[in-house]
């Protein structure tokens, strides 16, 4: 009897544990109202980041947390307007382009000062380019962006506030590349001379030693917990950035970046009022949308993002895969059939929760300056796909597809495990391609393993992957030029393998050296047409960019290219949250 009673008690307890867990999230407070705080200056902005910074050295940073933080601490000569992607002055006062685009004379703002009070002038610019970015012993990923035709740009000092950049050939994205961070010569020159630059300004460095020119300076970093930035008292705003009424730039006194383990904890922290800004994935919209009012936040949908996802096939003749498979993948009709069989509406509705757009070509529609709007997107049309496959020499036995030599069409699709969205997309593709008789086996792999297989061992057949889009198509060179290392379908070709690849190579060379925006647009339009016809990458969908913004924040404007914060120095806190 006692045993029976204890058993039912155990069951009841199990029930309490199972069902009671659901109530836990409800216990933290989620109902808020905004109370004005009287002053707009001296605010504190709290955000979450999902990983620790790896370095505080702008020349060495490559992963997102470091680059995000360093974006608040350092500036370049130019900056990109988040509204339209045009180049605006930052440390520069202005510039003059001459000799058909081969010479750019940049004038610096007078009276610029580093955060430690030392003056900032043209010598810092020369130092940054010559001693750091063009120094072969420094492991910086920026260098490749600053090379024109593989050669460095010549940088000379005319007077303390004037720097002259000269290239052998005109280089259209030069002004944009001048946005690289300028580094303090008086601090880092001894470090470079001592040969220890690659280890300098690591995350163990004393924050006071990290001297910048951005609106904020590093105040404290506790690994695994937080990074705190304070306003830079010596900050001088770029031309065109005006202070919000009631405070001087930067308006905020402090930015607090909390390091959290993952996106879900970040979501919960935003819902419970602990953070002010939160980048929302489409899946999280269903959780956030009904709670806008009680959580005192706005959801800002800024239209399609720059990132794109695509599938691509291995067209590399050197690849160690079955020769008949290579023949399928190199067949343009086969790739087109695949493009027509993909249900992009399902991809958007299921994976992106209805918040996304199909993409027709390699330039995201957010980049209006270069987007070719005459390309028709591929719709979901399995009948057309089957017809194309038959034209390409394939035939059906039952519902499965066979090629001319009698091989059944089965393909291994690789994608990376880190992104659950991509694995879901792969499953939808699997169902879509089954409709046209193609059997797909999905193999999710870790990113590093995947990268090795795709870029060095070439042992892969079909890949579902994504790339972050760029503002200027020139940034896509490593993907589209046949010699590029990210030319995924056939990396690092000694010479263009197919006629259309040769044409794209030519177009990219022309695009880089043409200064006239109208002619450049025409050149890149032609590239998009070829990409759309030949389909080396079959573009899928792009998610909408969504940011959740607490209503206490001011200085917020959604922009298509730069988030909801046009310039971090203009952001201010106009209220505080109080329980409703």
């Amino acid at each position, binding site marked *: 009897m006692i045993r029976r009673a204890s058993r039912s008690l155990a069951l009841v307890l199990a029930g309490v544990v199972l069902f009671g867990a659901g109530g836990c999230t409800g216990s933290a407070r989620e109902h808020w109202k905004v109370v004005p705080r009287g002053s707009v200056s001296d605010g504190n902005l709290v955000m979450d980041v999902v990983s620790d910074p790896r370095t505080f050295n702008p020349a060495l940073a490559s992963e997102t947390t470091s680059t995000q933080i360093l974006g608040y601490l350092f500036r370049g000569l130019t900056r990109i307007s988040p509204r339209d992607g045009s180049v605006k002055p930052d440390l520069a006062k202005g510039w003059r382009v001459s000799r058909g685009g081969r010479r750019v004379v940049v004038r610096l703002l007078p009276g610029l000062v580093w955060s430690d009070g030392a003056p900032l002038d043209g010598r810092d610019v020369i130092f940054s380019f010559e001693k750091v970015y063009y120094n072969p012993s420094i492991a910086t990923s920026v260098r490749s962006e600053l090379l024109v035709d593989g050669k460095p740009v010549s940088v000379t000092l005319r007077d303390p506030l004037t720097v002259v950049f000269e290239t052998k050939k005109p280089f259209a994205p030069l002004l944009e590349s001048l946005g690289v961070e300028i580094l303090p010569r008086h601090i880092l020159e001894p470090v470079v001379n001592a040969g220890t630059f690659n280890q300098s300004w690591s995350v163990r460095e004393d924050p006071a030693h990290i001297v910048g020119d951005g609106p904020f300076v590093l105040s404290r970093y506790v690994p695994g917990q937080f990074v705190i930035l304070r306003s830079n008292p010596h900050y001088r705003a770029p031309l065109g950035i005006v202070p919000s009424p009631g405070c001087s730039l930067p308006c905020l006194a402090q930015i607090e970046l909390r390091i959290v383990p993952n996106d*879900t904890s970040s979501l919960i922290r935003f819902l419970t009022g602990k953070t002010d800004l939160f980048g929302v994935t489409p899946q999280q919209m269903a959780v956030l949308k009904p709670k806008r009012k009680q959580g005192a936040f706005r959801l800002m949908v800024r239209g399609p993002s720059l990132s794109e996802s695509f599938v691509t096939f291995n067209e590399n003749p050197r690849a160690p895969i079955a020769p008949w498979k290579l023949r399928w993948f190199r067949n343009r009709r086969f790739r087109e059939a695949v493009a027509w069989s993909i249900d992009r509406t399902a991809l958007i509705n*299921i994976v992106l929760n209805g918040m996304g757009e199909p993409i027709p070509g390699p330039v995201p529609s957010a980049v209006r300056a270069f987007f070719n709007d005459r390309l028709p997107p591929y719709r979901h049309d399995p009948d057309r796909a089957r017809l194309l496959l038959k034209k390409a020499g394939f035939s059906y036995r039952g519902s499965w597809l066979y090629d001319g030599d009698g091989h059944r069409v089965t393909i291994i699709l690789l994608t990376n495990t880190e992104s659950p969205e991509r694995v879901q997309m792969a499953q939808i593709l699997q169902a879509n391609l089954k409709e046209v008789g193609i059997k797909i*086996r999905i193999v999710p792999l870790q990113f590093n393993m995947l990268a090795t297989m795709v870029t060095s061992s070439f042992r892969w057949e079909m890949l579902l992957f994504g790339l972050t889009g760029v503002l200027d198509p020139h940034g896509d060179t490593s993907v589209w030029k046949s010699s590029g290392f990210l030319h995924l379908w056939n990396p690092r070709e000694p010479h263009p393998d197919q006629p259309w690849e040769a044409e794209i190579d030519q177009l990219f060379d022309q695009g880089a050296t043409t200064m006239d925006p109208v002619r450049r647009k025409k050149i890149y339009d032609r590239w998009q047409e070829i990409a759309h016809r030949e389909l080396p990458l079959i573009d899928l969908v792009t998610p909408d960019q969504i940011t959740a913004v607490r209503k206490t924040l001011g200085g917020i404007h959604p922009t298509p290219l730069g988030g909801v914060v046009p310039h971090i120095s203009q952001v201010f806190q106009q209220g505080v949250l109080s329980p409703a």
Partner: protein
Amino acid sequence: MFRKGGIPLLVLCLFFVSSVLAEFLAPYRYDSVRFDLSYMPAVWPARHAGEWAVPVIKLKDPVLHRFETVPGQWVPVRFLCRGESYRWMGAIRGTRHLFCVDKPGRVALLGLDLFGRDLFSRLLYGIRFSFLLSISAVSLSFVIGIMAGLFAGTTGGWADQLIMRLGEVFMAIPSLYLLMGVRAIFPPGLSATEVTLIMTGALAFVGWAGLARVVRGLAMSLREEDFVLAARSIGMSPLRIWLRHILPNMSYYLIVALTLSIPGFIVGESGLSFLGLGVPEPHPSLGNILAESQSLPAMQAAPWLLLSGMTIVGVVIVFNLLGDRLRDPDRMRRIP
């Protein structure tokens, strides 16, 4: 044994029969998708115009997963009907289902998952997969465990030492890590069959040591019994002694141990699948259905996916209750 099993045994039999007949009982195949009905809540048949029918549902808001019924459109439910084709147990072709609903209707007794697949159907297939896999893994591990235990217990000496110390090494490592380690030896991207075989092997490989230890103990004590000595003195062969005297005397313990270790294997399988190391999608198992409901948005949009977790808990409890009932001291008597 059947009378002693009582309700838990009945429930288990129900589970077992329904999982064996999964193809027939499930209205849809496990991989039958409806991309337009992602995360649709349960739709039950109701009486409409004198017959059983389901309303036609369409997506209203993909962001919040809101659905609406199309007014006036009902699709009748047919019983013992021809529907989606399947291969029963991967072998016999068939199209008969207990009930089906033609497109555009969709019957969903427990709701649909992200890809619009029927959770009820997937659970039936998933239970079968988890059951068959753990039963075969348990059998394999029992064969290994009993052999190792008997050999160690009856021979003694250095063989005993070797086997038992090896078993202790296995028992010292937490089983989930050991499982993951064994699974990691094999490359990713294997087919469902290969993964199933590997998982069976891995589970058996991890599970034999505990049993071997107890069997060895029992064998050592039975070895000293008078009836074993008698058998030995009349020249009976060791193998015959094992089969005739030692094993039958352990049978009750073994049956109980069997019922009590199956749930451990089910949890092991689900754990591996939950971590993505198990059978690949779209094949369902209790673990990978549960893995679908991992994220907060998924849990909010489709809480019914947690039913697979409840099923795991339910099955484990029923097995334990059964084991409890079978473990009865007065049945543990000696069989001379």
